[in-house]
């Protein structure tokens, strides 16, 4: 077992914050960890929300996947911990229908 404490949530819990930036739900997308190469749903990432922003870590190796921080009037998004995100094209269609 790794040494992390049990104070994290699932990537699901970031869906509201991420919806401020992305047009569709990113938590159902698959992302590849840039550190260990594991490909999992973003919803499965370990999420730490008690700091000044949101930090998502890989559920396999705990490497940082994403950071989202609100500083004064700006929002900083750092996603270099992921090599890619793959999204369901059908869901993309659905989310644009929903907004229409």
């Amino acid at each position, binding site marked *: 077992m790794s040494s992390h404490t049990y104070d994290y949530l699932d990537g699901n819990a970031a869906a*509201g914050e991420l919806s401020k930036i992305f047009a569709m739900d990113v938590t159902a997308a698959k992302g590849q960890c840039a550190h260990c190469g594991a490909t999992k749903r973003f919803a499965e990432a370990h999420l730490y929300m008690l700091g000044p922003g949101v930090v998502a870590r890989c559920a396999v190796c705990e490497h940082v996947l994403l950071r989202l921080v609100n500083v004064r009037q700006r929002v900083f998004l750092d996603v270099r911990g992921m090599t890619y995100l793959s999204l369901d094209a059908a869901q993309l269609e659905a989310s644009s229908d929903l907004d229409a």
Partner: protein
Amino acid sequence: MWRVGTVVALHDETATARTITLKVSDWTGHLAGQHVDVRLTASDGYSAVRSYSIASAPNSETRIELTVERLRDGEVSPYLTQELAVGDRLELRGPIGGWFVWRTQQTEPIQLVAGGSGIVPLMAMIRSRVSACSAASFRLLYSVREPGAVLYRDELEALSDHDHSVSVTYAYTRVAPKDWPRPPGRIDAALIANTTWPSNLAPTCYVCGPTSFVETATGLLNASGNSSDKIRTERFGSTGDRQ
């Protein structure tokens, strides 16, 4: 992206949990398992955002139900469960989340595992199954502190005893009813083996509850042969009022 919901009904589920029915005129529908973010803003501008699972099944109405458990040191839940009144308005963002959801097209066996108020999004799935007349086989393992803390007891009883929509197993952690076959305690391997779907049926498992509960439950489901990619989880922390 923030919508406004008007409180149209309040219903106490237990001594500490209340269901809030909101009318949201521009609601575009939701999936069972999704949540909303609720934002409360004080007169001095301070605001707090908390996530609450939707308890009601998707429907064509523009009403949703949230069941909120009051946390002793909570910043938001005491207000929502004690002071909120019919006619009040709440700011909402959502529906949110596309992963911890059950869709009516799913036909595989479904294993639900709830810890405490983690039952809320799972109840939306059960209600969705009923309203869609789905034939998917549902089992629920509901771990709860004591009999008085069980949410939706009558409805679950009706659905399991008469309707057979879902088969329910209660696991009491502190106080069990008299003559209950299992002494109070945390869920364990024997309980998982005896009451959940055998892993060879490849059930999709939805686990929701406090972080430590989810950790335990997913470990046990894994150990009994369920692969990680068939287990979807939703944790709520101990400090954030998360439901």
